[in-house]
């Protein structure tokens, strides 16, 4: 009883001990905040990565892919049918995206993924990532409302709004070219100049024509010539062998500068290549000079056309080019994907890459994405699939295995941070040690009194041990509360510091999160608090033993 009483009294009267309480408290609070933010980041990131990659992925080793996706999907169903919810075959290949913005040609290296939107949507949350279904949100603020209802299946058609935009752009362009054509009638040049209505010099106008047209519409001969003969030959070969009518020479529709083509082809008709384009590929952010707020600039929009270059399957691979209409913008929130992925209609991509077997008409695939009924079975399913998909041809893995290095990096980062922060608490522990030695010296006489009154050495020792424990409990208790409050109000605090310093502390342009993500793990909080208490008790052992060993007579004589 006296132990408890003294312990409480010491807690109330020894203000020096407050210092150690504060250091334990700060250590605990910091650990909780950092851990919550780290795990918030990591789980947000995992969600986003998982949203793009499916649960289990079967990858072909070669870019040429393997023939007959249906056969392999049947094979997968045979071994793990009851655990598989949905599957989709895709073609993944590297490529180049080109379009023009303010007369500058812009080329971006991309990963082109040929997909079936319907089956892809069953494997992952595709609808959440397409602008026409999810709209555009920054934080909780809706910038653009969704244009399609969630019940629609994603496909390769434009929304009415995008189609209207496309029509308008085509009409404007037509107007421009008509007027340009009229003015550039040979011999009429001088008169046009005399009118004072000449927007371009001759040499400038030569540059302008192709630049306008690459974004949308008529394709001048220069670029057509850029398509290699190999690619053309390949494509033609495929088509003729396939027996299908060569309607889909992609340049034919693109070639609208020709007046005769214009008569036969609807200028607003979409290109045969259709894509969902990663938002990071076509947007950039600038600070609005008027408001100072960051503002998104779109270089091309849904309904515009861009060019895609990639390689054909076969040896040696040849380059191939095709124009494609942007049907939707893809926004996963992972900049790595948003700046890299272009989803394309699978059959067209297969055709362009010469991946369709002329005999059977079946396309080759490079990847099968699988959604499981229960992700907990993933390891088992991977084992089963590995047994039937020969490792020489395929690599089977979960999305985590595929993104292993990235996820491991995050884990290691958080482990190192934890070690460092725990060192802070250890430092607090040494603080307790020093302060306790001081208190023991200060209390030497009292220890002598207690012993004279019959207190045992163990009793004296336990006073100081429970004092340490009490400091630990109070310190980590206040620390836990403080840490949780900080985590809860972290975005308000961020706003405050942004206001205070005039600089954005958490810049969503860098992190791609609208606000700081946090996730409080109760086990983590418990461990941190428990660890801090343990350290506080450990730090008080030495001073407590010293107190216990004090000789009563000497302690009483101590002044």
């Amino acid at each position: 009883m006296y132990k408890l009483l003294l312990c409480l009294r010491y807690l109330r009267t020894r203000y020096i001990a407050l210092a150690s309480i504060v250091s334990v408290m700060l250590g605990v609070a910091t650990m909780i905040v950092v851990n919550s933010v780290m795990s918030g980041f990591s789980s947000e990131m995992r969600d986003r990565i998982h949203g793009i990659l499916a649960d289990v992925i079967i990858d072909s080793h070669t870019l040429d892919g393997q023939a007959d996706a249906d056969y392999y999907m049947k094979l997968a169903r045979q071994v793990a049918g009851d655990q598989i919810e949905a599957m989709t075959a895709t073609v993944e290949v590297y490529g180049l995206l080109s379009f023009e913005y303010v007369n500058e040609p812009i080329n971006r290296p991309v990963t082109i993924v040929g997909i079936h939107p319907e089956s892809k949507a069953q494997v992952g949350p595709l609808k959440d990532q397409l602008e026409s279904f999810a709209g555009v949100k920054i934080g909780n603020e809706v910038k653009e409302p969704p244009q399609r209802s969630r019940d629609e299946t994603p496909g390769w058609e434009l929304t009415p709004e995008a189609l209207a935009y496309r029509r308008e752009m085509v009409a404007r362009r037509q107007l421009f070219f008509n007027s340009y054509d009229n003015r550039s009638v040979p011999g009429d040049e001088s008169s046009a100049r005399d009118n004072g209505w000449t927007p371009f010099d001759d040499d400038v106008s030569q540059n302008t024509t192709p630049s306008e047209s690459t974004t949308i519409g008529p394709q001048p001969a220069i670029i057509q010539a850029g398509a290699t003969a190999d690619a053309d030959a390949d494509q033609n070969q495929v088509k003729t062998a396939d027996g299908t009518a060569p309607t889909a020479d992609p340049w034919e529709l693109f070639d609208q500068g020709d007046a005769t083509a214009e008569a036969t082809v609807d200028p607003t008709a979409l290109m045969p290549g259709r894509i969902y384009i990663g938002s990071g590929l076509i947007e950039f952010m600038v600070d609005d000079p008027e408001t100072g707020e960051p503002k998104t600039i779109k270089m091309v929009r849904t309904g515009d056309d861009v060019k895609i270059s990639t390689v054909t399957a076969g040896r040696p691979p040849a380059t191939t080019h095709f124009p494609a209409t942007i049907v939707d913008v893809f926004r996963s929130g992972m900049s790595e994907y948003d700046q890299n992925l272009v989803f394309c209609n699978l059959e067209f991509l297969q055709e362009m890459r010469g991946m369709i077997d002329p005999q059977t008409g079946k396309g080759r695939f490079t990847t099968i994405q699988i959604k499981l009924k229960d992700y907990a079975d993933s390891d088992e399913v991977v084992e089963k699939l590995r047994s039937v998909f020969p490792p020489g041809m395929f690599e089977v893995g979960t999305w985590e295995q595929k993104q292993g290095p990235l996820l491991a990096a995050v884990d290691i980062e958080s482990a190192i941070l934890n070690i460092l922060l725990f060192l802070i608490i250890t430092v607090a522990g040494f603080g307790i040690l020093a302060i306790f030695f001081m208190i023991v010296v200060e209390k030497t006489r009292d220890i002598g009194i207690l012993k004279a009154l019959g207190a045992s050495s163990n009793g004296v020792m336990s006073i100081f041990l429970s004092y340490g424990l009490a400091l630990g409990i109070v310190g980590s208790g206040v620390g836990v509360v403080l840490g949780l409050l900080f985590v809860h109000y972290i975005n308000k605090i961020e706003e405050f510091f942004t206001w205070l310093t005039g600089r954005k502390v958490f810049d969503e342009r860098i992190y791609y999160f609208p606000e700081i993500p946090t996730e409080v793990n109760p086990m983590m909080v418990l461990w941190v608090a428990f660890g801090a208490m343990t350290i506080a008790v450990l730090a008080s052992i030495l001073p407590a033993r010293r107190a216990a060993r004090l000789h009563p007579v000497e302690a009483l004589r101590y002044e």
Partner: protein
Amino acid sequence: MPRKHIRAVALEKTYRTGQHEVPVLKGVDIGVNRGEFLSIVGQSGSGKSTLLHLMGLLDSPSVGEVILDGQRIDNLPFDTRDKLRNRVFGFIFQFYHLLPELTVLENVLAPLMIRHPSWVYWKRRREYRRLAKDIIQKVGLAHRIKHRPSQLSGGEMQRAAIARSLVAKPEVLLADEPTGNLDSQTGQEIMDLLTELNEVESLTIIMVTHDDSIAKQAHRIVRLHEGRIDVLEEAA
């Protein structure tokens, strides 16, 4: 001759300071009867406090024995000696030695808190509080019950210390210069209190003092000189 209540037999105590051995007690034999009031006098350094500490089990002798009721107690295990200090001996010191964080009442209750595990004490706390308040009243400190030692005068602190030594109902009261830090009038009041305790409760009291006028109020005086008993005299 009746059996002595507490007896010191050929007690020797040598302190070791570094390389030097300092003999403080060089063979002391004392027997104290039950209910006797004995004072030990001597100059500073004569070993009188050490003798008191040895008899109260605060320290263990280099040679010799301490015998309580015919049983040797100086070589008992630590926990038994702790218990004896708590139950059999009551201590009063020159500098009062109250715990500064606790109130007078809590200081007085301290021996009882030390004696019992927390839950036992908690169950009996009302009974003990009443007991402690009675004793505080008896030493004349009822108006200071909630005060801290730092708010008390020297005499009041010594009364609190006496109350604390009495609460455990000891058999032997060991007082080390109880009046040494007090003016003569307050000192006399404390002596009156001790004498009354000795007479009314027939408590065995062993008191160390250097003041002859105080010592004379005891039944018997032992005079120590350089670690040996010099004179043994009956008080007036």
